[in-house]
């Protein structure tokens, strides 16, 4: 008698399904990845050992470019509207309702308050940090950041939004500008803020490194 026939099966697996999954995931990740925001302001941040991720909601971001210009951006449209009203009332920016609508849409602000009206008419392709004057924060007398911060704090208080101040400075920005911005924070009673940095490893052999090795949490930085 003949041996029973063993059906010869193909060893190849159908890859179509796997390919579908792979590309589905790929398109998902590409679509959910956030495009780099506010590229109009070029800032190269320094690095620090802090591993805390910067907050992303209700953020008031103050950027300092390398030539010492100060820019301001907010993400909450309600707060922005309130800020526009505050600036109108306290600093005489004389913004019309149409201007306030433009203010709400604007990604960032970077002019003296007196030029704010014309700034809101600037076409989007001219909104680059090197073409704009920035918010003046030259010395204690000419520090419009104080006015801005007051308006922002008042706006956050009235809308009930949480205030998260982020400071994003360029490596080459000079200290006096930084100091004036901090002074503005202090004057509006904002003593907590965060500085945006790039993550960096803790150098080996230092006290913080030993702390981490012992498994302690970083209390000094969290306080």
């Amino acid at each position: 008698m003949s041996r029973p026939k063993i059906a010869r099966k193909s060893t190849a697996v159908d890859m179509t399904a796997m390919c579908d999954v792979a590309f589905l995931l790929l398109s998902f990740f590409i679509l959910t990845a956030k495009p780099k925001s506010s590229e109009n302001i070029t800032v190269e941040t320094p690095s620090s050992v802090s591993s805390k991720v910067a907050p992303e909601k209700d953020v008031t971001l103050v950027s300092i470019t390398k030539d010492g210009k100060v820019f301001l951006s907010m993400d909450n449209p309600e707060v922005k509207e309130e800020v526009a009203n505050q600036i109108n009332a306290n600093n005489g920016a004389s913004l019309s309702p149409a201007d306030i609508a433009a203010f709400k849409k604007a990604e960032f602000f970077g002019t003296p308050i007196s030029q704010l009206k014309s700034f809101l008419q600037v076409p989007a392709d001219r909104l680059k940090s090197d073409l704009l004057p920035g918010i003046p924060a030259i010395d204690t007398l000419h520090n419009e950041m104080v006015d801005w911060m007051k308006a922002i704090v008042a706006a956050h208080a009235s809308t009930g939004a949480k205030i998260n101040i982020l400071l994003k400075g360029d490596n080459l920005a000079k200290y006096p500008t930084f100091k004036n911005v901090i002074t503005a924070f202090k004057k509006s009673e904002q003593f907590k803020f965060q500085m945006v940095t790039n993550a960096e490893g803790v150098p080996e052999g230092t006290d913080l490194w030993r702390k981490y090795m012992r498994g302690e949490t970083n209390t000094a930085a969290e306080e």
Partner: protein
Amino acid sequence: MAEMDTSGGGGHKKGPGVKKAKKASTRVDLTPMVDLGFLLITFFIFTTTISQPTAMKLFLPKDTDKPEEQNKAKESGALTLLLGKNNNVYYYEGQLAEQGANFQSSTMKKVRDIIINKKRSTPKDDLVIVIKPSEESTYKDVVDILDEMTINDITRYALVDISDVEGQLVKITDTNGGAK
């Protein structure tokens, strides 16, 4: 690879001289495409998580004019770091002596050793580091030095405005070539 021809030899005989028409498989091998897909996924995942910026917290003290509310620092435990041009760091311990006799130069890279030495030689509760950035110092210097405080686990430090005398001293040393 996706489809192996296993039907070899099983075709019908069409008689002598008739050539067997080769049946080409319409299936395409998708393995390299899957490889590529997953490679791209890995690439995107890595690049998106790495560019996530971190934030360093800083709490400012309230400015107070009343002397009784100000924090007193022991002279023996104080280390003052002055930030100058081009990542130069100058430092002195305690009070600045006349003619700047205890005024020493260093750089941002070597400052960690100075901080560590001071930390080791001072009782924990007395140690205070005073950071005084000059007009010429950059934002990076300030962040770096604040980062040094975290790295070396210094709990008491202060960011203070530079005085005129110190500012002059830093300026002169900077123009004379800075740290040796």
